[in-house]
């Protein structure tokens, strides 16, 4: 055994000697890197921020990198391994917490406290989404949570007067609107976005201390069975359990799906593709119980940053109204900076009242956000749970077995951490 370990160690040394030393990218003392998540189309604005930021700071250089969602983690992990993580990082969903759990992010709790005016300017519920084990790791960049879009024309045709008021309504309405070429309900599924369907039935995934599972209950089984049955009958569109972004939104935009449960930006996508979309034909509202799953973008600082103070300055600079406002006005989104958002919504009331109303929903009922467990291993829990749920929704397993199997797998992941 000793021998084997020795061999292994020397192997590790060889591999390390050949591979591990620091790469050649020299970080000049005043250079910071800003990594964003798929916003390459706003290059003009971001380059403008960098120009303004560096103008008053001689010798400071900001490098901007943008990567798409599927590749950003690969890029970031590679940079972490090389010891050159980007100083400021923009992540979506629970990834920020995951990186915090991995020890990659800087704890910014004390910085937020020291600068109370800055921290308190944010919607506190959203800010709280990036609290891991009692410490803050990210601030809001731009925020979203799920809402229910409904196709008013299809509702009218089916003799329905308004959006559903309960889970029963959702299923019943969906059944009413389905036909050979249309379905009644569609939800996005990535990053727990479907969780409000469970939350409105009083089902939670984990215990409040996040130490054990809470979903293997008769109620959860019943809800799952009903969703699966409605999927089987065609009332719920199957894309709900297989698509990601383009397919579900594209399907709803085609005009033959009654309801779409998605986060607010889906509107812009749907409007871009669906010629039928007007305030008269499309409604957006809270789901029954006003639950919603956030899928926000946050900004954090890498613990490996050589210039954390400069990075913090930059982070504050871009989340300042003068900068983030430009971005928010262009893309019509919510920043979590309460003062600015209020002003922005008032402007939108005049130019685009529908969007103003839609964005307001994003700051309502923020105490009812679900699917945002403060886990450092969210992706593993998701990977343990989601395929089992898919098994039920697509008719391969019955709800009881699948949830029991999922329970075992999720428990295992919780224990591993």
């Amino acid at each position, binding site marked *: 055994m000793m021998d084997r370990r020795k061999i292994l160690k020397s192997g590790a040394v060889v591999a390390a000697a050949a591979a591990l030393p620091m790469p050649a990218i020299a970080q000049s003392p005043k250079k910071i890197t800003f990594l964003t998540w798929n916003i390459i189309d706003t290059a003009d604005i971001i380059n403008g921020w960098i120009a303004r930021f560096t103008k008053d700071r001689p010798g400071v250089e900001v490098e901007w990198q943008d990567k798409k969602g599927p590749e950003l983690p690969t*890029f970031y992990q590679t940079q972490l391994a090389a010891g050159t993580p980007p100083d400021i990082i923009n992540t979506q969903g629970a990834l920020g917490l995951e990186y915090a759990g991995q020890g990659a992010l800087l704890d910014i709790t004390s910085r937020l406290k020291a600068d109370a005016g800055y921290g308190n300017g944010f919607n506190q519920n959203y800010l709280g989404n990036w609290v891991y084990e009692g410490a803050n790791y990210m601030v809001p960049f731009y925020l979203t949570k799920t809402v229910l879009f409904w196709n008013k024309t299809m509702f009218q045709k089916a003799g329905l007067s308004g959006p559903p008021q309960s889970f029963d309504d959702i299923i019943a309405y969906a059944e009413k609107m389905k036909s050979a070429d249309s379905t009644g309900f569609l939800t996005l599924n990535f990053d727990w976005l479907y969780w409000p369907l469970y939350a409105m039935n009083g089902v939670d995934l984990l215990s409040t201390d996040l130490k054990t599972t809470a979903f293997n209950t008769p109620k959860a089984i019943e809800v799952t069975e009903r969703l699966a049955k409605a999927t089987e009958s065609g009332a719920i569109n199957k894309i709900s359990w297989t698509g990601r972004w383009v397919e579900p939104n594209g399907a709803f935009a*085609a005009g*033959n799906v009654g309801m779409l449960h998605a986060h607010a930006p889906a509107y812009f996508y749907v409007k871009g593709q669906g010629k039928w979309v007007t305030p008269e034909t499309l409604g957006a509202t809270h789901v029954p119980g006003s639950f919603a799953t956030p899928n926000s973008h946050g900004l954090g600082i890498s613990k490996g940053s050589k210039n954390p103070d400069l990075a913090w300055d930059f982070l504050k600079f871009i989340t300042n109204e003068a900068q983030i406002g430009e971005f928010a006005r262009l893309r019509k989104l919510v920043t979590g900076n309460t003062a600015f958002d209020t002003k922005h919504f008032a402007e939108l009331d005049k130019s685009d009242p529908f969007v103003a109303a839609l964005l307001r929903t994003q700051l309502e009922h923020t105490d009812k956000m679900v699917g945002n467990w403060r886990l450092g291993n969210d992706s593993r829990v998701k990977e343990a749970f989601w395929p089992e749920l898919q098994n039920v929704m697509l008719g391969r397993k019955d709800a009881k077995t699948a949830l029991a199997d999922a329970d075992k797998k999720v428990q295992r992941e919780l224990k591993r951490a």
Partner: protein
Amino acid sequence: MRTKPLSIVLRHGALVIVCFIMLVPFYWVIKTSITNENIYAYPPRLLPEAPHLFNYVDVWYFIPFARYLLNSVIVSAIAVAGNVVFNAMAAYALTKHFVGKQSVMLLFLSCMLVPFQATIIPAYLITAKLGLLNTYLGLALPLMSTIVCIFIYKAAFEAVPQSLIDAARVDGLKERQVILRILMPLSKPAVATNVILAFIWSWNAFLWPLIITREPIMQTLPLGLARFLSYLEDTTGALYAFAVMVLAPSIFVFLMAQKEFIRGLTSGATKG
């Protein structure tokens, strides 16, 4: 001519069916690239309505197309040159008999079996160590010799009759001359295949350039893809136009190189 008309018709028939299957998806790519239709609409529209070329123009301006194109051309040229030369050398060595040949072959084969996705982190660290991050050579290096192409050369070299090589040696040709004057000219299809495949692989490489380029000015064409998978806008039309524009050079290289695949015709091998 021994070939009967019926057999010619059958052969054309079979090829037409195959080509139809190959082309239907392409038709859709091109159709979508010249319209801005919602491809999820039912029933699908078979003919393009109000076709236009705006998407192609958009692609040119959405990304620094000319710069990316230049980078891609340089990287692919390095990779192609590397493959044509290094692979020929390695393949020639493998036609010789030497101690440990079986082990080298096995090593080459097993190198093929390491999936790139599992090598990203170490490959990055090694490239950094070599000081090649963010350089053309760093982009091309992992693709400068490929095992498949070595085996293609090897098979071609082995098909050259030994008598020809022996005769050349008797005439006093040196090793180098045997390769350059006998083997390579007789293995033109293999050279062409090396060029085509090396070009395609380096041209379409996505994850590797994404990981090792830092400055936008060093990015290759496929990285432009990100611009067309936007979160908010529907850029399907531009995305497909982009795919066509990235594809075009590969097709061009194939058409140029495929001249080497018509030896059968000129030498009358199949005329019967």
